């Protein structure tokens, strides 16, 4: 091959490589992952403590509860609705679990009761949002208050403690060096990711979020799936709440108060659209992870107390902007 023929060939190779990289950059989760890795690299340079096993375990443990609830939230958001009650449901489920155990029931029964309490709130949300056609924002705003009110009412603001060791292990124990709640998050994430990608019902959720009327005309069982996503969101928030209680070794009536905003932020940062039709479980886990590392950075870098919320908010907006620019 002459030099004249070789030059265009090299140019073609470079263009192909660049095109491949451009396609990779179009994958929102990958872009978020790269952003996180860049952030973590900077953090590792700025703080010696960052890459220690203890610190990473602490961060992962903290993020797992938000991550589990955020995966449930994702299912609702894909269909174009929202569940504002998730933080309160976490508090309620943890308290129901603790009180059931305190009443002498077995640990597994108590955990089931807590998770079922979450599912029940989800069903309630589904009935009022789907059956009666009330905007999910309003219905779940109501159940946010109801669930928190029940949690406070059950104990009159008190705290429940005194759980068996196995329960505490589920909240903060480790298997092969990995915190148990993180393992549960990974399992939940894989199940939901497989459901969304490989099942008809999973793909139908995106269709509902994209265009509900068109999905209905195409024969998608819209109402049934909408009920299902609210129940799933309540169930996963319930699971997260039970694990949070196990983590703290105490059920406090203000547990997870205000977490709904962090959970929704994790879903949006992870690439989901509040208008529906977009989002993946992997993206949501990355979104939750980013928020957890931002919180960790506040401690490690000793960000001034009064500016911490501004810092967190700025990162959330920047992450959402990054995703918006792609669209």
């Amino acid at each position: 091959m002459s030099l004249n023929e070789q030059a265009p060939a090299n140019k073609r190779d470079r263009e192909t490589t660049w095109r491949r990289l451009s396609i990779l950059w179009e994958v929102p989760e990958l872009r978020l992952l790269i952003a996180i890795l860049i952030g973590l690299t900077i953090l590792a340079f700025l703080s010696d403590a960052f890459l220690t096993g203890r610190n990473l375990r602490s961060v992962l443990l903290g993020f797992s509860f938000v991550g589990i609830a955020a995966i449930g939230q994702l299912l609702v958001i894909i269909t174009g609705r929202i569940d504002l009650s998730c933080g309160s449901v976490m508090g309620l489920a943890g308290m129901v679990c603790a009180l059931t155990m305190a009443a002498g029931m077995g640990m597994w029964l108590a955990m089931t009761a807590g998770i079922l309490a979450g599912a029940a709130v989800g069903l309630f949300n589904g009935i009022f949002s789907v059956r009666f056609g009330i905007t999910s924002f309003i219905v779940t705003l109501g159940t946010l208050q109801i669930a928190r009110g029940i949690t406070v009412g059950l104990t009159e603001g008190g705290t429940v403690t005194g759980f068996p060791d196995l329960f505490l292990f589920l909240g903060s124990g480790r298997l092969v060096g990995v915190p148990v709640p993180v393992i549960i998050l990974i399992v939940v994430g894989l199940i939901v990711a497989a459901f969304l990608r490989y099942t008809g019902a999973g793909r139908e959720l995106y269709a509902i979020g994209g265009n509900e009327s068109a999905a209905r005309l195409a024969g998608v069982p819209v109402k049934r799936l909408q009920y299902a996503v609210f129940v799933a969101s309540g169930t996963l928030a319930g699971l997260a709440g039970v694990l949070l209680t196990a983590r703290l070794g105490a059920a406090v009536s203000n547990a997870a108060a205000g977490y709904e905003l962090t959970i929704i932020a994790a879903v949006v940062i992870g690439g989901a659209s509040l208008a529906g039709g977009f989002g993946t479980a992997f993206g949501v886990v990355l979104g939750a992870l980013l928020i957890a590392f931002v919180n960790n950075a506040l401690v490690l870098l000793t960000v001034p107390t009064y500016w911490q919320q501004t810092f967190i908010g700025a990162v959330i907006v920047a992450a959402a902007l990054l995703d918006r620019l792609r669209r």
Partner: protein
Amino acid sequence: MTKTVELNRRELIKRGVTVAIGGATATMFLPRKARAQGSVSLAFVPKALNNPVFEITRAGAEDRVAELEGVSFRWVGPTTTDAAAQSQIIDDLVVQGVDGICLSCNDPAALLPAINRAMNEGVAVITWDADSPDSQRLTNVAIDQEAAGAMAGQQMAARIQSGKVAILTGTPGALNLEQRRDGFLRGIDGTNLEVIATDPNFDDVQRAVEIVEQRINATPDLAGYFFVGMWPFFADLATMPQLRQFVSDGGVCVSLDALSGAIAAVEQGYCSVLIGYSWYGFGTSAVDVLVDYIRNGVEPADPLHTDLFIVDESNIAEYAALDRETEGKW
């Protein structure tokens, strides 16, 4: 001559409503002291119903009310910390005709108008714990927040003279927490202790536990840790092995509040010193102050500071026994 008037149903309702509104209005504008001659109705408004520390004040108030004749008690507040909701609750209580209100303020400025409105309506208002000092409230039943912080600083300085110190606080800007922090800084003034960070947990127990672990991990040469409130001790102590290690390695942890979880923390080696005061006593004192003012017109001293005490290794057994005996209500 007797005049009989035949009233139809509509006329009856109209007159009935007029009489009811007139009666209610007249009652509303009667001086509260006059209405309180026989019975006294009190309402306590905590910062939030979901905070267990306020329940101890509630127990103190209820126990004291049970000892008094003709005094009724209500406990009403927002589910979560919300100054606007507290303001509305105060307005509602005034309309409902309570004689006295005891309030722990979520925000001193935001609650000021509602407190002043209530006082102008003749309702006796006092605050406990968190104050609204510029309002017309009669007094503040509380601790001297700065003195408590200073005592914490002195206790730390008595144990370590130099090194890095971290502070764990709740929601930035909360008046009582800021005063405690200022007092602490005054207490360690003149030592070689250096405050390297003040981490807010926004009153979230989970976040508090996370911060404590991450701060100790991030600062291997940390010498002292000051908890402006006992948030981490609401969790199971076993969830904070690094805090225990920190204290057993010679680190000094000083915390405000001496409720059950904090007492257990000193007992089990997670905390060195507590600066305590009686949340139960807030309840009994507040009832006494209000009833005395409403019934006898006795103006209370302002502020009414309750005693502070120190819990450490020298007296922990005594306090632990008291805590168990009273189930935390002391």
